[in-house]
């Protein structure tokens, strides 16, 4: 019995012999350090797997919802037929399909669905970026005056009768108005190369109030028919959106959202303050300027084809944070997918719930989105942990 403890060290003392050392390559320090590292990696990979599942689910949802929206309407097209029509047209295959159904799905419904998806993605990504940039859960894509600028641009264009002259004049005016307003707000808040975010917020609100007042003045000088059109535009809608509209927004949304994603790490760093971000190596002023510019472009383009669709950009990021956490590397793309599904679904409801009467899409996002959001707020007290 006494021999074994003596024997053990003896064998261990033998181990530095070349043969034993080769069979046991890991030095003792590495073995000691391993458990902690392994545990951390396991935790991280579990989180990564669950995030991948969420992204997978969000991606599939967009396609399912899009096909659903393309199949439902006054003329019902079976779901599988819809999928086949879309697949066939996209891939350039010729499958024998009932031609009116194919026409409806491909030329009428699908463009509208795509515009809804793109607008939803643009507003949600922009909203998430703005909430990060302002470190404020109340921030929305149009905060820097973009929404009110777009509205004023569109209303002035309609007031001048441009909507009769060319289909693109109102959206172009809205886009110009959005960028104009954002530029004013940015210049007001920037002094000596530094942009003060509190000033920017206040300037944005002030400019919005002023533009709303100008719009209200114009109300007095238009006849009822035009007034109705203006009010409808302001509520946001997607009626009659065609492939042209898809083509017009795609570059802005695609480039804008991708570019915002590029700034995800900077937005993360900015969440603990500008000094901290700067000390971590973030070029703070350049980041603020570029993120604001990208948000203005993306949001401006979205609003100019859809009108004012509220709440998507405010709510979606909060819901998405529950699923993938606050890291902007995941939050921004997940918000884009979720926002696309949300707006496609909202637009489907808008088209069909009181058919043949169409609701404005902006109304549906509020009527259905807000109660859901309030329910989340009430049931999850920790939904908005902003400080």
């Amino acid at each position, binding site marked *: 019995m006494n021999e074994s403890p003596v024997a053990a060290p003896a064998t261990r003392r033998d181990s530095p012999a070349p043969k034993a050392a080769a069979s046991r390559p890991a030095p003792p320090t590495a073995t000691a350090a391993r458990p*902690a*590292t392994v545990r*951390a*990696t396991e*935790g*991280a990979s579990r989180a990564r797997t669950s995030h991948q599942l969420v992204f997978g689910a969000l991606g599939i949802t967009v396609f399912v919802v899009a096909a659903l929206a393309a199949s439902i309407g006054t003329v019902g097209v079976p779901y599988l037929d819809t999928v086949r029509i879309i697949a066939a047209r996209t891939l350039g295959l010729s499958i024998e399909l009932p031609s009116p159904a194919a026409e409806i799905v491909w030329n009428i419904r699908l463009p509208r669905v795509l515009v809804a998806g793109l607008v939803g993605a643009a507003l949600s990504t922009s909203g998430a970026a703005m*909430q*990060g940039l302002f*470190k404020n*859960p109340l921030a929305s894509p149009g905060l820097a005056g973009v929404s009110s600028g777009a509205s004023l641009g569109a209303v002035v264009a309609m007031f001048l009768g441009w909507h009769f002259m060319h289909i693109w004049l109102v959206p172009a005016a809205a886009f110009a108005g959005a960028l104009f307003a954002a530029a004013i707000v940015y210049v007001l808040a920037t002094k000596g190369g530094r942009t003060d975010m509190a000033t920017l917020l206040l300037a944005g609100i002030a400019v919005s109030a002023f533009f709303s007042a100008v719009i209200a003045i114009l109300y007095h000088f238009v006849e009822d028919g035009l007034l109705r059109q203006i009010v409808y535009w302001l509520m946001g809608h997607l009626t009659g959106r065609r492939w042209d509209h898809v083509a017009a927004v795609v570059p802005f949304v695609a480039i804008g959202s991708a570019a915002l*994603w*590029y700034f*995800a*790490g*900077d937005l*993360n*760093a900015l*969440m*603990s*303050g500008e*000094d*901290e971000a*700067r*000390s*971590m*190596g*973030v*070029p703070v002023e350049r980041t603020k300027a570029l993120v604001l510019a990208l948000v203005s472009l993306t949001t401006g383009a979205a609003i100019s084809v859809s009108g004012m669709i509220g709440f998507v950009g405010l709510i979606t990021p909060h819901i998405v*944070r529950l699923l993938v*956490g*606050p*890291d902007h*590397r995941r939050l921004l793309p997940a918000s884009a997918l979720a926002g696309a599904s949300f707006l496609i679904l909202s637009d489907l409801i808008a088209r069909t719930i009181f058919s043949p009467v169409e609701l404005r899409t902006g109304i549906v996002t509020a009527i259905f989105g807000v109660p859901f959001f309030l329910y989340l707020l009430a049931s999850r007290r*920790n939904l908005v*942990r*902003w*400080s």
Partner: protein
Amino acid sequence: MLEIDGVSFAIGSHPIIEDVSLAVRSGETYGVIGPNGAGKTTLLRVAAALLSPTTGRVLLEGTDMHRIPERARARRAAFLSQHPQIGFGFRVREVVTMGRYAYRRRLAPLSDADRTAVDDAMESTGTKPLADRIATDLSGGELRRVFLARALAQQPLLLFLDEPTAHLDVRYQIELLELIRHIQVECGLTVVMALHDLTWALRYCHSVAALKNGRVVASGSTDSVLTEERVEQVFGVSNRIVRPDSGPPRVDVIGV
């Protein structure tokens, strides 16, 4: 290592710090003391290149801090402000990982070096058990250690701390300062920190600069700067510096 050379900073025509010159040696803890409004925070922010000085310059190993590109600078100097905060439900590990910003390519996954740096930083600050907690749920003392871990994840040579003990209870203050001292020795860091508590300055700093109204009143080794007369001159309080035979020294403040 760090040379602050005739630095002034003014807001409009109102000077905050004026003609400050200090030399910080490699591997030491340098304390900046002075009453409220003396310009301690501003001096630290200018020194860490978060603010550009109106005149003068800051040299890090002979290179102008303000001319080093952001990322390269962040790999050499880290700054921890007085009230670090982070909202939106970030978890502790995510917060510490942000310290790797200057090492990572955009949107690239963490490298092994990043993971090791984050793990080491959390290990040495004792924040590993907090890794999956949400930052806003932590106590002030825990949060301070998390942000310290993030600064360490930057693997800097130089660490700026703006009142690291602010709003902490006495025990946490000592624990944090001991932790900083420990890390400093272990990693060979140079630490520059603003401190309110003169006793801590006396115990934890090799050198001290006393600021008053934006100007340096005295700078040099802690013992030469922190004298009873100087404390009275700078803070306007009568005081006694007690150096007991056993145990560390302290500054007793008697009254105005």
